[in-house]
């Protein structure tokens, strides 16, 4: 008895100040840390994007030198992928998975703490080389593209920083994934069978398996780079009998599942939000689950569609083309299911719903260009042009990022206990929506007309569309400050949120009080 009491007393002890955040094992605190970290990285990566866009505002070199420009494109990509999008999803999982499955916390709380606190160090290792050396403006950080193809990356004199940053990011992701799998498989409330789990939980379960499968492959790739550079091996060095194309195969065997790691949880969020605001059950729950699982499976067998121009045998090109376009089938099923969920619903358009519907529209455009890119003969023309840049920003900005913002707006009242300002939310949505299209839609045209990506300067015929993109990018960037203000305002106060928050809300998280208690479900709810 006395032991139980000490145990309980220990749990009620909340350290304050910096210690609360350094030593926390609570899923909500860690979720908050992840989300703020992600927002910080989003701002940093965003500033880099604005440097890129400012330089490209007109032809000629005005602001930075080409090497600095390449460093900006490289770090912008790496920071957005590994610093902004992925940690934001882990943050959402931390906050929501225990609440959605009826658990008190994550299964492995200490590992949870560690997997977060690795991240700031990884980000520091990634960015620090920018400042090491005499001349900041010369571009002393990594400048070889976020895909860090060998042998170009092997020419980088501070490669070890990059390699260890990637290793740390990998540790963090793998630990996060293990924790999420352990939580979902072991801590669901009685009666919650797998096929009764909310879709957000399903998408994260599958994403976590993808992470565990591919992060070690990435670790292998960077380790080989490290030994090639410093220990005289020749994995990727043709002069020593190695193979530069091998690097690309390994990288994309990680890289393709990685793009689904960044989009599947967004699918899950959209699938939670649309039924809530359509006041109607999700259409085709089971087919949604099967579609996600098929997409995840297919993501492992299509990687070389990123490499159609490396000189594969024609049989290889045919296989990767067929397998790639197949992904359109389960993806189409998901879009049809969302549209049918909206059909004959009773819809209202609060901010989360706006983001969710916006995601469905724009992600679909990104899906279409993905299909076009999958058709190998046409890909020879699209490959490494701005058409590709347009494509992946439509899936990553208006897919992953919009999905994250939708989720934050949707659950923010549950987290803070306060309603956010609908007016600010809508202003932020419309500004972002318009400027996103202004930035990225013209890139389809510049790409088709022949502008290669990762170009610090360009021929005159691309000038007009580049100017439009730059104007869009600046509006986009500054609009995000509205979100920062909205969130801080909501944390500080506002109209009190009810427990259910939304009229059409469904699921266990809405049975908890708002704000949700520190330990979500101390007694497991029963699912009938």
């Amino acid at each position, binding site marked *: 008895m006395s032991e139980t009491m000490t145990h309980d007393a220990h749990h009620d002890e909340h350290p304050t100040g910096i210690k609360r955040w350094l030593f926390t094992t609570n899923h909500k605190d860690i979720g908050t840390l992840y989300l703020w970290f992600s927002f910080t990285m989003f701002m940093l990566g965003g500033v880099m994007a604005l440097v890129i866009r400012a330089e490209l505002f007109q032809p*000629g*070199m005005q602001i*930075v*030198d*080409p*090497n600095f420009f*390449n460093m900006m494109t490289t770090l912008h990509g790496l920071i957005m992928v590994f610093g902004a999008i992925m940690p934001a999803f882990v943050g959402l999982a931390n906050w929501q998975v225990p609440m959605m499955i009826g658990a008190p916390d994550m299964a492995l709380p200490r590992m949870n703490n560690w997997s977060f606190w690795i991240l700031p160090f990884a980000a520091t290792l990634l960015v620090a080389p920018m400042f090491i050396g005499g001349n900041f403006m*010369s571009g002393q950080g990594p400048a070889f*593209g976020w895909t860090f193809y060998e042998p*170009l990356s*092997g020419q980088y004199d501070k490669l070890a920083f990059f390699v260890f940053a990637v290793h740390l990011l990998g540790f963090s992701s793998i630990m996060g994934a293990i924790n999420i799998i352990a939580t979902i498989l072991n801590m669901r409330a009685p009666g919650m069978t797998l096929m009764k789990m909310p879709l957000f939980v399903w998408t994260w379960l599958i994403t976590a398996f993808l992470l565990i499968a591919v992060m070690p492959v990435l670790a292998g790739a960077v380790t080989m780079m490290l030994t090639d550079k410093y220990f005289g091996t020749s994995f990727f060095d*043709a*002069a020593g009998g*190695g193979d530069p*194309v091998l690097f690309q195969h390994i990288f994309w065997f990680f890289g393709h599942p990685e793009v689904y790691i960044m989009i599947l949880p967004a699918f899950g969020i959209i699938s939670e939000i649309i039924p809530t605001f359509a*006041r109607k*059950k999700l*259409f*085709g*729950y089971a087919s949604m689950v099967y579609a996600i699982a098929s997409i995840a499976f297919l993501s492992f067998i299509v990687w070389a569609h990123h490499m159609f*121009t490396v*000189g594969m045998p024609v049989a290889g*090109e045919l296989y990767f*083309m*067929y397998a790639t376009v*197949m992904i359109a*089938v389960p993806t189409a*099923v998901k879009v*049809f299911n969302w*549209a049918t969920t*909206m*059909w*004959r*619903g*009773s*819809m*209202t358009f609060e901010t989360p719903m706006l983001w969710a519907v916006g995601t469905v529209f724009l992600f679909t*455009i990104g899906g*279409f260009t993905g*299909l*076009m890119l999958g058709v190998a*003969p*046409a890909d*020879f023309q699209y*490959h490494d*042009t701005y058409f590709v840049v347009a494509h992946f920003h439509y899936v990553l900005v208006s897919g992953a990022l919009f999905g994250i913002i939708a989720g934050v707006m949707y659950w923010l009242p549950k987290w803070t206990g306060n309603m956010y300002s609908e007016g600010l939310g809508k202003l932020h949505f419309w500004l972002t929506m318009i400027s996103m299209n202004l930035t990225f839609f013209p890139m389809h*045209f510049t790409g*088709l*007309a*022949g502008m*290669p990506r990762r*170009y610090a*300067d360009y*021929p*005159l015929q*691309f*000038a007009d569309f580049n*100017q*439009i993109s730059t*104007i869009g990018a600046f509006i986009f960037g500054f609009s995000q400050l509205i979100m920062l203000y909205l969130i801080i305002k909501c944390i500080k106060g506002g109209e009190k949120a009810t427990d259910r928050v939304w009229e059409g809300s469904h699921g266990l998280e809405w049975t908890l009080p708002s704000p949700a208690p520190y330990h979500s479900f101390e007694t497991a709810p029963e699912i009938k």
Partner: protein
Amino acid sequence: MSFKHNNIMTKGLVLLSLWLGVAGQSLAEYKLNFQEPVNAVGREIYSLHMLVLWICVVIGIGVFSMMIYSIINHRKSKGAVSSDFHESAKIEVVWTTIPFIILIAVAIPATSTLIKIEDTSNADLTIKVTGLQWKWKYDYDNGVSYISSLNADHNKARQKGSGVDVTKIENYLLEVDNELVVPINKKIRFLVTSDDVIHSFWVPQFAMKKDAIPGYVNETWTTVEKVGTYRGQCAELCGKDHAFMPIIVRAVSEEDYKIWMAKQLASAEAAAAEASADKVWSKDDLMARGEEVYKGKGGCFGCHGANGEGVAVFPKLAGSAIAVGPAATHTDVVLHGVPGTAMAAYGSQLNDLELAAVITYERNSWGNNASVVQPADVKAAR
């Protein structure tokens, strides 16, 4: 098939640009779609691209209009009451099958085009293309070989703070010193490789893109139907000056091609004779030629700076330990490169005279004061 602009769309975009206050002189020049292909395969790729685009547009219109219809009509404020249908195996099967059938319809023409693209047999002419940081080297099958780099004026203009208004330069970034010359209506096979990092050889109007990879010799081919100048650019990130290594192909009639080739052969012979003679050159002659190589063909200034001051993360030569140290070490670095860095092996790009001249120039410029290197020294060091 029309490559003309869609009028309404063009006007709309012009208005948009005007409204945004960014109207430039080149407004009339922008393109919304592929550059016009100049061969049969290119036209096939173009129509495949348009086929998939239109399929996407039609499906998009279908899905989006359904969503927009329900956004307008099925809203609570209009008194819509939600139905409770949420499952239908029949519908799921239908909308899984239809996309699948459409994909097969796309895959059939795509397969036949792809097989044509990859058939490099029965070529009339073979040209080896080597990507170098940051220029291209072309080798014809009769031994004619030269390096093609960005036009020197463009190169000056594109430097930050050059003070040149690049919008006044015709074909900005799309002019080179030595164009690749090919005859029209011949099947030309390209063997594409690289001496340093990966580049990608792309001329949009030929609808041909192939990566140049060290250790690999990739094959691709094209035919050109019309006499003209075709402009392409490197399409794989290859470091600092990735944007500044254009590919300019001049397609000429067969007679003109023969005349051009005869000239090349003659001048190549003369250059080889001059370089191989074991003549001892005066320091002034070597310095003059060395400056030419440093700022031109060799492209050394790109990393080491026009005044040996170094660029970005690349080392300076003024006062460097190598440039003022023993001649043998300096010669070795230039001849064989430095593995694991961007310093290439120039032994395969420059002849003995050019190497001796540029090494001498580096050793005796910008305050450096070291020994003179003769072509014979380079020959011995090879």
